[in-house]
């Protein structure tokens, strides 16, 4: 058994405890430890990705309890990919925050590490209840991060955010309870085996449970009509927290793929692809609403938040196909939209700081310091988010357009995605013109100098978006393999429960 599989969860957990207990009053040391630990986390994730690249999922049994009874972590291409993405994103966020953001409140780095624990755990776990626990760890830390820095607007939005997630957690538990009541197991591999064999009388109950879980994941993934929390939360929180939250919507998308591609996947008998009829239509409306939001936003952070809603719509359109090309395109786009979205939010933070009293509202103001640099970075962010060449949003959208051709209504979806891209371009052009072109002469009084670390973080994220285009060939091969593996029920079950011939003997003990 490969013990490194648990490292992505253990490392942030110990780092967080260490930061809290020993370095509580030493912010500089906290920063260094946090940056080093996050970089180590990225290295571990890359190591695990290399490990997973042979295409065979590996199970890690906690306490070596046999699989359906104990808790398992499963490393496969999908979880490894998401771990690397989390590592990259968190490193950029920590670098950005180390320039001073982390001192606006207490325990920024501790909370961030706890959130990494939850996110990494959610990507690795092979057990539905464990998924709930890691979701909660991630959310509890995110409540703290969301409120980091305080302020009335943030508190109000934070109350909403916490309340909505508590309701979602309640739904999660009801769904888990129903699934357990019918199947008697919560291990994903075991569930995948048992769901097709459920008696017809119980199928309704199981379907109710499965769809309740879908509601929860859809809330996390900001799928219409459960997206309302996202713009308010992301627009009210601080830039590093919003950038880190970028991966949280992707956790929702990941959970949809894992549970509805594997457990309730194509081979699940009467409950095959139980969520599929809802994902595609909802994703289409999500894209539409996100686009309208971008065009109508009155602040840069609001605009960024709606751009995220639109990008979630785009990627869920592809994911909702639940076939190999669709999932592969969605995964390529997940990486792109996480990087580009994080860069956009970090940049919005700089704009907010640099423009004094006007903040990030889309109103003309005296020019901010380093306007040309920030404006240039904004242009790149906008190009990435809208999906114009040469950054990876373009290729991602092309792949998604290609993938939806297998769906019946593809001309409509093409028209919508392309039309939305045009409207998004307009929205970003409007924001950029007001923020950077309509600015007056520099105002009197001291203006904040741009710190090098935040710029480095943003440039790094945008460079990675560019590199993601350059490496599109190998990346596509990797994502194809990932998609194939994530929809392969037999391989996953064999990795967790052991080969078929020995399985019955093991269970009979």
């Amino acid at each position, binding site marked *: 058994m490969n013990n490194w599989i648990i490292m992505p969860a253990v490392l942030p957990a110990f780092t967080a405890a260490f930061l809290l207990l020993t370095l509580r009053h030493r912010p500089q040391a906290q920063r260094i430890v946090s940056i080093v630990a996050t970089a180590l986390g990225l290295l571990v994730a890359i190591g695990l990705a290399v490990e997973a690249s042979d295409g065979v999922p590996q199970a890690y049994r906690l306490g070596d309890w046999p699989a359906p009874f104990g808790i398992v972590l499963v490393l496969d291409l999908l979880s490894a990919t998401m771990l690397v993405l989390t590592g990259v994103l968190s490193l950029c966020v920590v670098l950005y925050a180390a320039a001073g953001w982390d001192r606006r409140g207490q325990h920024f780095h501790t909370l961030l590490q706890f959130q990494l624990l939850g996110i990494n755990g959610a990507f690795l776990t092979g057990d539905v*209840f464990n998924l709930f626990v890691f979701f909660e760890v991630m959310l*509890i830390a995110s409540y703290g991060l969301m409120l980091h820095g305080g*302020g009335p607007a943030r508190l*109000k939005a*934070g109350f909403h955010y916490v309340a909505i997630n508590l309701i979602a957690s309640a739904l999660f538990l009801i769904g888990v*309870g129903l699934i*357990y009541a019918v199947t008697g197991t919560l291990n994903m591999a075991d569930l995948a085996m048992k769901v097709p064999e459920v008696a017809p009388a119980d199928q309704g109950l199981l379907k109710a449970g499965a769809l309740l879980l879908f509601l929860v994941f859809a809330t996390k993934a900001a799928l219409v009509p459960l997206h309302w929390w996202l713009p308010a939360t992301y627009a009210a929180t*601080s830039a590093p927290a919003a950038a880190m939250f970028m991966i949280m919507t992707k956790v929702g998308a990941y959970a949809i793929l894992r549970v509805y591609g594997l457990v309730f996947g194509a081979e699940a008998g009467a409950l095959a692809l139980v969520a599929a009829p809802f994902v595609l239509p909802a994703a289409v409306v999500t894209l539409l609403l996100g686009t309208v939001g971008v065009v109508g936003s*009155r602040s840069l952070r*609001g605009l960024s938040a709606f751009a995220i809603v639109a990008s979630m719509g785009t990627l869920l359109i592809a994911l909702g196909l639940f076939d190999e090309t669709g999932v592969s395109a969605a995964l390529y786009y997940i990486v792109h939209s996480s990087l580009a979205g994080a860069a956009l939010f970090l940049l919005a933070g700089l704009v907010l700081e640099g423009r004094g009293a006007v903040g990030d509202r889309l109103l003309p103001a005296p020019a901010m310091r380093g306007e040309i640099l920030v404006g240039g970075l904004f242009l790149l962010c906008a190009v990435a988010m809208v999906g114009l060449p040469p950054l990876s949003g373009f290729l991602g959208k092309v792949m998604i357009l290609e993938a939806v051709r297998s769906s019946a209504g593809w001309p409509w979806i093409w028209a919508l995605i392309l039309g939305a891209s045009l409207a998004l371009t307009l929205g970003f052009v409007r924001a950029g013109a007001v923020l950077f072109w309509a600015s007056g002469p520099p105002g009197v009084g001291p203006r904040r100098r741009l710190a090098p670390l935040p710029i480095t973080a943003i440039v790094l994220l945008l460079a990675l978006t560019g590199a993601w285009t350059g490496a599109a060939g190998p990346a596509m091969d990797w994502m194809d393999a990932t998609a194939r593996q994530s929809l392969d029920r037999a391989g996953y079950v064999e990795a967790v429960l052991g080969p078929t011939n020995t399985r019955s003997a093991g269970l009979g003990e």
Partner: protein
Amino acid sequence: MEMLVASAIGLMTATGLFLILQGRSFPVIVGLTFLSYAVNAFLFAMGRLTINLPPIITPDAAYTDPLPQALVLTAIVISFGMTALIVVLGLRGFLETGSDRTDLSLAEAAKEPAAAPDSDPAGTPAGEATRA
């Protein structure tokens, strides 16, 4: 017994939902508490309702399912912590804004007052001391 437990859970859920839909933070918090009670009782009942049976598998005797009990324990701990957090959050929100209304407009959320902590100069240690 099933009927009684089911209607009790249903009543608690309905109460919780009604309170959550109110426009002030206190009823919302109480509603969330009701909802988590209902969910805990529901989870508990998922292992089937039995009376006076041990949670240990014995070959010849009936037993009660121990797993939902473990799940409920986890759920109780999490919902307890979350309730404490949202109480503090509601209180902080009331003290800072002078109102416990929970509605919020996007324009308000996006509008950062000039005195907001985000416009503190970077790295001032004072920021750390004043904000918990």
